[in-house]
């Protein structure tokens, strides 16, 4: 008698500890091996793009916080840049520096969560996760000092900022940058040569360079595949052309590279912060823009290098106080499109860490 085996379908999510939100994967397994995978989106769809049409240009800023709630400042920045481009508004020097500082702090905070959660998916039982949350909390303390809120800041405005930073902010930020630099080395001693971490992540879930480019991946996922593409260098927005920093890239495009690229990017962010915190000039932080303003008829697309990749806002104005159409190019969503190619043939356990290494936020995927 011959025994017959058949594949079975496993629904991973929408509520599952490792889906980082409400995401569902319909995996077909042959034993432990994944032979097919169908991602199912839309459990967190709130229609944010449509809501933009019902709000004024300023009134949409709080909703951008709700996109990628791990990096709200970056979302704010991407949106206000698009509106400023649409209306042709110049931003004061001090505000530009503040934007860079906040965006880089936000990148560190987001990457810390990404790396910590990645190790949690590997099964490291929260130790790296909690270590990294320690620094993230300090960054959130800084942001709370500015905006009064810890996660959804609603701090940036079209034309600059609503209010200047308090006097304590800069010294506190400098201290924190030094602390983070020290901590990053400390985490490497825990994780970098961890035999099991390497065995789990090296060579696993390879995203080839060509595939990464053709699906439109961006951010650390693209750079880990060996493509040197960073919007801060390729299409400098704000004042990023004034700072010295490198664009770290990986070679293999595996989970290990994606994790290492994030750590390397945090070091580069520390470098940018060092320079920016030294050079912050005085002066106003806001160009006057009325609360209800009418940008000229037209369209604008502004994109930034958000922690998770290229975050773009496409706005169409018909001359009224609200955008006629708003489209958001969400990096998490587009990075996720190659998931099936990355996981087929790997084990169920690898699926979790490959998915974790892409680092998505469901708020951004479903919008």
């Amino acid at each position, binding site marked *: 008698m011959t025994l017959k085996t058949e594949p079975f379908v496993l629904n991973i999510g929408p509520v599952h*500890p490792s889906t980082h939100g409400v995401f569902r994967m319909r995996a077909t397994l042959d034993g432990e091996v994944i032979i097919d995978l169908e991602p199912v989106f839309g459990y967190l769809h709130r229609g944010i793009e449509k809501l933009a049409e019902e709000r004024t240009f300023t009134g949409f800023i709080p909703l951008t916080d709700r996109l990628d709630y791990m990096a709200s400042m970056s979302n704010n920045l991407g949106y206000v840049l698009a509106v400023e481009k649409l209306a042709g508004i110049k931003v004061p020097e001090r505000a530009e520096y503040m934007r860079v500082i906040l965006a880089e702090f936000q990148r560190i905070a987001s990457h810390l969560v990404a790396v910590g959660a990645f190790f949690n998916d590997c099964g490291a039982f929260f*130790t790296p996760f909690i270590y990294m949350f320690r620094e993230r909390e300090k960054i959130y303390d800084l942001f709370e000092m500015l905006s009064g809120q810890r996660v959804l800041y609603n701090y940036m405005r079209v034309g600059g900022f609503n209010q200047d930073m308090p006097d304590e902010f800069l010294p506190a930020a400098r201290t924190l940058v030094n602390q983070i630099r020290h901590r990053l080395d400390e985490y490497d001693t825990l994780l970098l040569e961890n*035999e099991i971490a*390497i065995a*789990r992540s090296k060579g696993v879930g390879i995203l080839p360079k060509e595939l990464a480019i053709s699906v439109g991946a961006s951010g650390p996922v693209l750079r880990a595949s060996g493509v040197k593409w960073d919007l801060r260098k390729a299409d400098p927005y704000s004042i990023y052309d004034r700072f010295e920093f490198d664009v770290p890239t990986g070679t293999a495009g595996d989970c290990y590279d994606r994790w290492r690229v994030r750590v390397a990017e945090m070091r580069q962010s520390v470098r940018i912060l060092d320079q920016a915190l030294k050079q912050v000039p005085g002066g106003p932080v806001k160009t006057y823009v009325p609360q209800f303003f009418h940008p000229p008829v037209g369209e604008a697309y502004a994109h930034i290098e958000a922690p998770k990749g290229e975050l773009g806002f496409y706005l169409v104005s018909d001359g009224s106080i609200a955008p006629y159409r708003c489209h958001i190019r969400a990096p998490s969503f587009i990075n996720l499109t190659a998931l099936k190619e990355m996981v087929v043939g790997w084990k169920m356990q*690898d699926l979790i860490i490959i998915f974790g290494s892409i680092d998505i936020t469901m708020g951004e995927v479903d919008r």
Partner: protein
Amino acid sequence: MTAPALSRQLSAVSFELSSDWPGNFWLHWIIFSVILIVFVLVMVLAFVYIERRGAGRIQARIGPNRVGPFGVLQPIADAVKVMLKEDIVPFTADKIVHFLAPIVSFAPLVMIFAVVPFGNGVLLVDLNTGILYVVAIASLTSVGVLMAGWGSSNKYSLLGAMRDVASVVSYEIPMVLSVLGVVMMAGSLSLAQIVQSQNIPFIFFQPLGSLVFFIAGCAEINRSPFDLLEADSELTAGFHTEYSGMKFALFYLVEYGEALALSAVISTLFLSGWRGPILPPWLWLVGKIVVIFFVMVWTRMTLPRARIDQLMAVAWKFLFPLAILNFLITGVEVLAWPNGLPWPLIFVNFAIAGLLILAFSRRYKVGWGRVEVRELR
């Protein structure tokens, strides 16, 4: 029963030697069984506390500190909470299997302690096949796990249970082989005899054997980094996903009870069990158990989880050859020095262990494990 007999029994119970131990068989059996069950329960509560506080320390947080002084009553509060929970049985579950699974996995756990000596001659029954009994009984727990996985009619549970069976079957072999070194040195399978013959703890003569035993034991009881059957980030809670209330509490008890049993067996086999100066013997045993358990907490908090094929590879490509080599080396040494090994051999053995581990760890490749998949129609 006469009063002197009872007092003899009680004095034996308080872990002192009596001349005609074990005396009245049935009284001995009942009292000692109760003591063992209480010991397991109390130590499990202590372990839960140690693990949670230790995890707190390692993870730069405080850990439970609200219930009782320093939170020592936290495990009791947990136990009360979990017992008051509603017992939910899934509609599609195999009711009988689902009900029996926690009991089947809990019973063998207590049975292991029957042969663990708490002092000179203080044990429930001195089996002359003690270590064989331990190894055989310990793997029975996975029958309960498989029953839980199958009976829950949940795919996650079934995946977890299958992983557990696969790992237990594989790790049994290096585990038994690594024990053989100890058995040869002691010249007996009885745990009491093994402790008696450890004038120098066997961990010094058997560094390789104790390491292999520890790793294989951790895999067998599914402690991290081999906790694939629970794998909270992948399988939500693995085989006990569908359990709640007292049944879940039993599985929780089994999880820590297994760690306790492994620590007790390791202390007995390699750390000279109850032997030690000044302090009473049972305290020495408990102290050694806690030290071993702390090492387990430490690894759990530090290391990520291995993958199922890597788990198998470690068993067959790394632990299995090392255990056989250890077996051969110990055999030669015992042949050469039949009246006990001389102490300078400790350094030789440590050097050999280091070299072998280094040699075998270099054979470990990364980046493999992908399976070619045919296109589905």
